[in-house]
């Protein structure tokens, strides 16, 4: 028997006004299966820790016009970043010039809308009856793409030329044949050519898997039905997005967050976001943000877009599907020559902390737009990266240990902020203390929540993290890229207090204790020397006077707040009452 009609997501399904909710739901599951299959292939087969274990990669399917149809991502910073490479392809390559079996590669922020050089995109056309119908694409964060320092991210890089190999949109496969010479060229420009080449081959194979699955879907449904279902999926997302925008208060709202400096010890840098709601259109304007940084803390426009899409999804509708329907309702303006849209050849490698501030500014601007139930006070809004390097103790060779740390998240209408989490565009795991001590000649003295770091309020901000690490052998080198040590801060909302800033202390608790700035490079540690970083806490929500006595008492019993801080924030009378209750 032939059950095709029943199995087909469209087939005999009912339709109403052109939109078929049942077929769309069935189809969207098939689409997600394609991206999940691609993602599984990429993660399973790659070698590098970045892609395989931290899952710093994403996959997507675009239609022939370059509209995003579906995306699978673990990293919010990738939302829409594949879109950049896709738009570069649409702009540069006439569709007739694309052959079946071609595959394109790119990473450059200025030539191919990349977000920084380590993120390499591969795009492969999907042909049906001799015509391009879709594109399969994926992006992976490569551990090293050459440049001045291992890892290719140097806060002090002066131009993109110091950050590694630049790839404009280039064919890496021509009519089914891999260009091994190009692959070799890319490989030799990086510090671990074998790993690069392996992962790039896996990226190409991942798209091949997407092409195969898409062909299978077209075979089952027929190309017309697939196109109709794609329209339904995008149209549904657009409608859902417009519904969310329609509930917002029309008008203009702005918010500013600050970076301590531009990464090179200069003046504080404002990140200014103005949100405008007009009809059912949303516009975000970054005019008023600081000039482009001298170092690598600049955010290319396409990474700004990712921050915007992430923020909107998180603020308005976490379950919203990432596709062109989400993008179309949002206009973004970032003036050229600013830290949020640098001119070439500005360096952009260390963009992630600035991205956190961009999200923080957008979240801030939305405070006045959203009902209080949906507002969140500012979180730690940074992503401090600490790096220890030196010689391995138990075998030949050098090590580089990099860790990005979380902090407190902002308090909400009905809940304290989360303690010790990554916020916004990142969400990467820590390295367990026992794994660290097995691997490197380092010892962890403490890994703890930072008392009193959460901003007071009816609901308290989440607590930051303290991590103190001691060098055990000579010639241990330490660097850090952090922020919100001196100027930037998590700001409270509706009367909630600010979170505590971060700090970095060498040899904490000794006579030689020394507080360092948020960005330091290449501090040499002697055996026994320690570095302690305390990351920022989140801010509070609502007046501290409204915090329940039970919550104050619990925080005091738990040591999340000290008696002194509690009395300063909540008043000694209420603290006494809390302790007596």
């Amino acid at each position, binding site marked *: 028997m032939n059950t095709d009609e029943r199995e087909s997501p469209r087939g005999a399904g009912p339709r109403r006004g052109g939109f078929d*909710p049942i077929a769309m739901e069935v189809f969207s599951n098939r689409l997600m299966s394609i991206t999940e299959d691609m993602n599984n292939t990429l993660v399973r087969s790659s070698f590098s820790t970045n892609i395989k274990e931290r899952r710093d990669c994403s996959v997507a399917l675009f239609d022939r016009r370059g509209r995003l149809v579906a995306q699978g991502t673990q990293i919010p910073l990738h939302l829409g970043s594949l879109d950049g490479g896709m738009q570069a392809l649409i702009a540069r390559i006439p569709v007739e010039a694309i052959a079946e079996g071609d595959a394109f590669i790119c990473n450059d922020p200025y030539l191919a809308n990349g977000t920084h050089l380590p993120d390499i995109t591969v795009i492969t056309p999907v042909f049906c009856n001799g015509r391009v119908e879709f594109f399969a694409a994926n992006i992976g964060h490569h551990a090293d793409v050459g440049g001045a320092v291992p890892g290719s991210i140097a806060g002090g890089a002066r131009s993109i030329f110091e950050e590694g190999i630049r790839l404009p949109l280039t064919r890496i496969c021509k009519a089914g044949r891999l260009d091994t010479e190009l692959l070799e060229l890319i490989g030799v420009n990086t510090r671990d050519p074998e790993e690069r080449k392996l992962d790039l081959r896996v990226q190409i194979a991942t798209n091949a898997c997407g092409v195969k699955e898409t062909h299978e879907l077209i075979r089952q449904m027929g190309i017309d039905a697939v196109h109709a279902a794609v329209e339904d999926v995008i149209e549904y997302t657009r409608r859902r997005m417009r519904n969310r925008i329609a509930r917002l208060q029309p008008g203009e709202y702005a918010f500013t967050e600050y970076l301590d400096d531009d990464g090179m010890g200069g003046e504080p840098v404002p990140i200014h976001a103005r949100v405008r709601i007009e009809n059912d259109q949303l516009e975000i304007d970054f005019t008023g943000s600081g000039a482009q940084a001298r170092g690598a803390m600049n955010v290319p426009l396409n990474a700004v877009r990712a921050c915007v899409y992430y923020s909107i999804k998180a603020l308005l509708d976490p379950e919203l599907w990432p596709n062109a329907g989400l993008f179309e309702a949002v206009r973004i303006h970032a003036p050229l020559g600013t830290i949020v849209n640098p001119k070439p050849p500005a360096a952009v490698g260390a963009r992630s902390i600035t991205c956190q501030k961009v999200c923080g500014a957008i979240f801030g601007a939305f405070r006045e737009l959203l009902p209080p139930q949906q507002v969140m006070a500012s979180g730690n809004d940074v992503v401090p990266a600490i790096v220890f390097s030196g010689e391995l103790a138990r075998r030949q060779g050098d090590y580089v240990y990099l860790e990005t740390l*979380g902090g407190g998240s902002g308090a909400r209408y009905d809940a304290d902020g989360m303690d010790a989490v990554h916020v916004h565009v990142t969400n990467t795991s820590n390295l367990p203390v026992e794994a660290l001590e097995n691997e490197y000649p380092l010892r962890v003295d403490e*890994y703890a929540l930072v008392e009193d770091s959460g901003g007071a309020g009816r609901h308290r901000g989440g607590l930051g993290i303290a991590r103190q690490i001691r060098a055990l052998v000579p010639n241990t080198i330490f660097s850090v890229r952090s922020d919100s040590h001196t100027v930037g801060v998590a700001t409270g909302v509706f009367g909630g207090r600010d979170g505590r800033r971060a700090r970095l202390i060498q040899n904490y608790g000794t006579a030689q204790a020394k507080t360092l700035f948020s960005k330091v490079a290449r501090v040499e540690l002697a055996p026994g020397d320690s570095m302690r970083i305390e990351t920022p806490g989140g801010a509070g929500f609502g007046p501290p006077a409204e915090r329940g006595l039970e919550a104050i008492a619990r925080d005091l019993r738990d040591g999340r707040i000290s008696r002194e801080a509690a009395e300063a924030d909540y008043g000694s009378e209420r603290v006494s009452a809390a302790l007596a209750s």
Partner: protein
Amino acid sequence: MYRIGIDVGGTFTDFTLLDEHDGQVVFHKVASTPADPSEAIASGIAELLRLHQLAPAQIAHIGHGTTVATNLVIERKGAFTGLLTTRGFRDVLEIGRQVRPHLYDYGHGKPPPLIAREHRIEVDERIDARGEVLHPLQDGALARAVLELKEAGVESVAICFLHAYRNPLHEQRARAAIERLFPQAYISVSSEVLPEFREFERLSTTALNAVVGPRMQTYLDRFLDRVRALGIAAEPFTIHSNGGLMSVRAVRAFPVRTCLSGPAAGVVGAAAIGRAVDFPSLVTFDVGGTSTDVSLVVAGAPLFSSLRSIADYPVKTPMVDIHVIGAGGGSIAAIDDAGALKVGPRSAGADPGPAAYARGGTQATITDAQIVLHRLNPVALLDGRLAVDEERARRALHDQVAAPLGLSLEEAAEGVIRIANANMGRAIRAVSTERGYDLSAFALFAYGGAGPLHAIDVAAECAIPAVIVPQEPGTMCARGMLLTDVSFDFVRSLIAIAEPASWVLAAELFAAMHAQALAWLERERVRESDRAFKYHIDARYEGQNFEVIVPLADGRAADLDRFLADFALVHEREYGYALQGKPVEIVNCRLQALGAVPKAPLTELSSGGSLASARHGQRRIYFGQRMGWVDTPVYLRPRLAAGTRIAGPAVIEEMSSTVALAPGRRADIDRIGNIIVQVASAER
């Protein structure tokens, strides 16, 4: 003599009774008693004994699966617990891996800590990564810490020190101090519960063990009392997450190992049945009231994993790799504000349940859709014990789905089921591609009350060529209890590059675990001829942070080169490549001790009965828009003989489940009573 398998679920407690003599199996079901789950166990056993006129002394074996530990965690009803840990690290329990649970939804927070910060006591002590004591534990400080917890009134204490997997000395001293100063406390020690490196997962597992320990003791006491009161002398066993049986004594010490108790039994049972009928590779598909469990069985054995979460708390013990999808019979169908029809993950569960059960449920569920289309019996289920109100199902579906979308009732019901099938199909594809398997080599093994109703369409959608429906699929987990062995898992971390020197150390760890395993087998009174041991090594290429599991022929006498070659093969299988010459790191050494238990033989069904004799009336069933309503004969499954072929349209009913066969489909009853449906691959 007889053997009883029991699976305690949220709604029902299921029983399988096996006659050891002739292999005949009977199935039974009673309503669960959540306040004291042992009550339903006792009443069910009593009913079984009465119905089949058995004496308690004829019961030789009881195996049971329980969700008590899991429910204590989910409902946050565990014991008041304290922690002793290394100075500077009490917050590891809360920091965890420093990730937020949901990328976009900040309303989805971290779960509250299992142990409050004020009851996490740090003591001065430190052991390094090589297991050397850097800072000795002082008796006085230890005693003060124990007394502090005692005064706080905790019932249970977890102990977890850094690097205790390497050197358990300080943890052992802490245990001794608690036993001396605070003998009433339940004690859970990380180097006993999970002697593996990575402090957060070890701590979380140890804390969970402490939190569920005291209430689990109470439950086991009651359970034992009730079984004894019935006059049954047999020692009851509990199935653990790895699919093996554990004695009551072992469960008391390691209750956290029962967190997947029932579901694991179903998978192990499915694997046993699959092996018996030449379907060694299965996708198990267990559709219940609120969720669907999916797992893979490859070459006759379930795939295992060692990490999952219960209510967002990580637990790391060896367990069957089961993936849970938020789709089950009670999943609610609803239209969102942008006009999409969503099915699940919200569920009406067992309470209030589907609208048709008339227990207060008013929202349209998948079960209601099945009833509206008459794929489920629109009058009564469970051999008539559960009345069905078709009108309520029709009303809910009409008001909430059909009318707002402008669809006929049938189109709406069909749509709800298609969406549910699409959700399930996507999950099955994800589970297979994540591990790199091609579904065309698998059969879909459907159970749980609702599994068989979805299985044929889901298999067609996923290009799985065959569907297997075991007898009484609604009690499959209880049956699985009778198809498995006694087992216990031991683990030790090594963390060393695989080379001759470290290979000697690995052999020493295996020898030590083997001695432990022998002692355990003695205590469990397993005869020497029934004993077996399985050896595995978790290994990775140097520089990786995740391991693959490599089986060894014999841990004590294994050959390093053979291990390295096997590692490459396993790595290739799991990840698609192997790297020549790259150093391999041994992370954990594992030993599983097994004690063979006489199994329920899978009895041949008698053959030759006529199809007509199994016929039990007919009803009209809606088989999709093209075929519409079709007069469909109803067959009673217990009357179907081996070798019977049934052509659709047909519906096959039994106490706990239903199979609806569309026109053109065919089903065969195999020699041990499974229903086999071939789903031609051309349909995809």
